[in-house]
């Protein structure tokens, strides 16, 4: 008869022996079932039409139909342009403003901790709450933006309701939301700059402009790259604020890619065409990723 506990010890030993394998397994399973399998399904959906009848799905093979839907989608071109304008403009403003704030506030002796605390708030607040706050503030009749314009004698502006301003308003909200994030990353890097190097350059007679261009910015390059990459990825995925603020309107003037996907999938119920669009989106993102890797590798070799 085996002693009590021997069984348990055998189990623990087995756990130890196989630790290497079972420690990675759950994560692999999660990714396989919740990301890889859906992507395979997406490929299947992209060439099909999925309909619901009496609670059951009916799949039919219709690659031609989905493709012609893509060609007939008049919203697609403006959506792609809007998304590119949104990402480039919003991220550029955020990088410049975040860098300026980090450099100027890095030179202060007091107040840094307080500012850092405040800057965390916008990052942690639900984007939906931010969207609904700014929807109130952009209100034509009582919003704070038009109130402020009124004080300097400018007539109220339709921030969210005019085709020329809607995308700009969404960009304003995004800038408010994410400058703090860029600031936090760059501020940490500015605080970590080697003081001796800066001092040496100053002693050698470098002007403030030279110091910034030749010493500070090159030293901040890794942090700048990280902030830029993170922001570009997140900006590309923006959905919540646009959904709340404008719903993509008026017309398609502020519709971004994620919102368009949502509309095709869940408002027009075109699961097949939505999947085709998704496949294109994923392909685009992955080729950008590969291109960026290739670029940085070339850079590193030089």
């Amino acid at each position, binding site marked *: 008869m085996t002693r009590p506990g021997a069984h348990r010890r055998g189990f623990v030993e087995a756990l*130890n022996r196989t630790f290497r394998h079972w420690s990675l397994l759950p994560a692999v399973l999660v990714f396989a079932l919740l990301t890889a399998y859906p992507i395979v399904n997406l490929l299947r959906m992209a060439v099909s039409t999925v309909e619901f009848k009496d609670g059951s799905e009916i799949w039919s093979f219709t690659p031609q139909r989905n493709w012609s839907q893509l060609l007939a989608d008049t919203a697609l071109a403006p959506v792609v342009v809007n998304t590119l304008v949104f990402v480039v403009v919003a991220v550029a403003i955020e990088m410049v403003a975040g860098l300026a704030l980090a450099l100027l506030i890095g030179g202060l002796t007091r107040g840094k901790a307080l500012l850092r605390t405040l800057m965390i708030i916008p990052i942690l607040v639900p984007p939906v709450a931010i969207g609904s706050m700014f929807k109130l503030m952009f209100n034509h009749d009582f919003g704070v933006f038009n109130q402020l314009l009124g004080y300097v004698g400018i007539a109220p502006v339709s921030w969210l309701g005019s085709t020329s301003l809607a995308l700009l308003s969404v960009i304003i909200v995004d800038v408010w939301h994410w400058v703090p994030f860029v600031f936090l990353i760059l501020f940490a890097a500015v605080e970590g700059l080697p003081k001796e190097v800066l001092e040496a350059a100053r002693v050698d007679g470098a002007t403030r402009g030279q110091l910034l261009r030749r010493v500070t910015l090159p030293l901040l390059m890794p942090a700048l790259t990280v902030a830029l990459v993170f922001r570009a990825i997140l900006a590309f995925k923006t959905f919540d604020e646009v959904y709340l603020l404008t719903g993509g309107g008026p017309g398609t003037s502020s519709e971004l890619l994620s919102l368009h996907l949502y509309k095709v999938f869940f408002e027009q119920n075109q699961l097949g065409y939505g999947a085709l669009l998704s496949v294109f989106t994923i392909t685009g993102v992955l080729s950008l990723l590969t291109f960026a890797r290739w670029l940085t590798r070339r850079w590193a070799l030089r």
Partner: protein
Amino acid sequence: MIKLSAASRAAFLGWLMLGAAMVVVVGPFIWIAVASFKHPIAILSGTWSFTPTLDNYTDVLLSKRSDFLAGVRNSLIVATVSTAIALVVGTLAAYSLHRFAWARWVTLGFLGWTLAFHMIPVLTLVGPWYLAFKQLGLYDTRLALILTHVSVNLPMAVWLMMSFFRDIPPEIEQAALVDGCHPLSAFWYVVLPLVVPGLIAAGVLAFVFSWNEFSIALNLVSQTNATVPVVVAKFAQDYEIQHGQMAAASILATIPALVLMVFGQRFIVQGLTMGSVK
């Protein structure tokens, strides 16, 4: 005119930016907080002098038409459970990749996949998720949200924990193993206590992401299982927009963020800026 030296001019500019930044960051919250205590008429007239009222808050929290408290319950369950799972699964995977000699293609493949998945707009996957959960009978359940939130949070958890594991000197672990410690005990008693700050940072970030997450919750659950963001969005989306309730709901939804900021600031900053320094 007083001539300022370059250094004090920069300092003055710094203080000016500091003040402006504070007004810009905090201003909207104050404006919304003030609006949330106004009657509808006071909101519409845009006045600054008004008799404060708690009507908006009682309406959001207690009225039969509002799902806010049910939303808080759903959000708490989804965020807590998905954070716990993401932490356990992510920490184990990070340790496995860091500690054990996996073939290059395994490590690169795994990390590359998480990176690619992190970059893809989540709405490309909500469609297939919707179909899969419908087939499994999980559509409109909190479990569907928990599972999807785990997959969304896992890349962050793995990367963050890997960078914390890398900071541990290998000698510490080797010493434990030489002294006869089993790999599992070395992990549990020696390594894990050293990465507690990382666990807190990853946990806080995962919780916040899950609490804030909107696009998945909007499409995978309906009214009874709706989370806080979905409920807040409804106040702004309904046919008849309720401005006061909208303001009150936004303020209420922000409270967890403020609490975390007070108690977990060090860990959040560490988590957010990790990687940029290295």
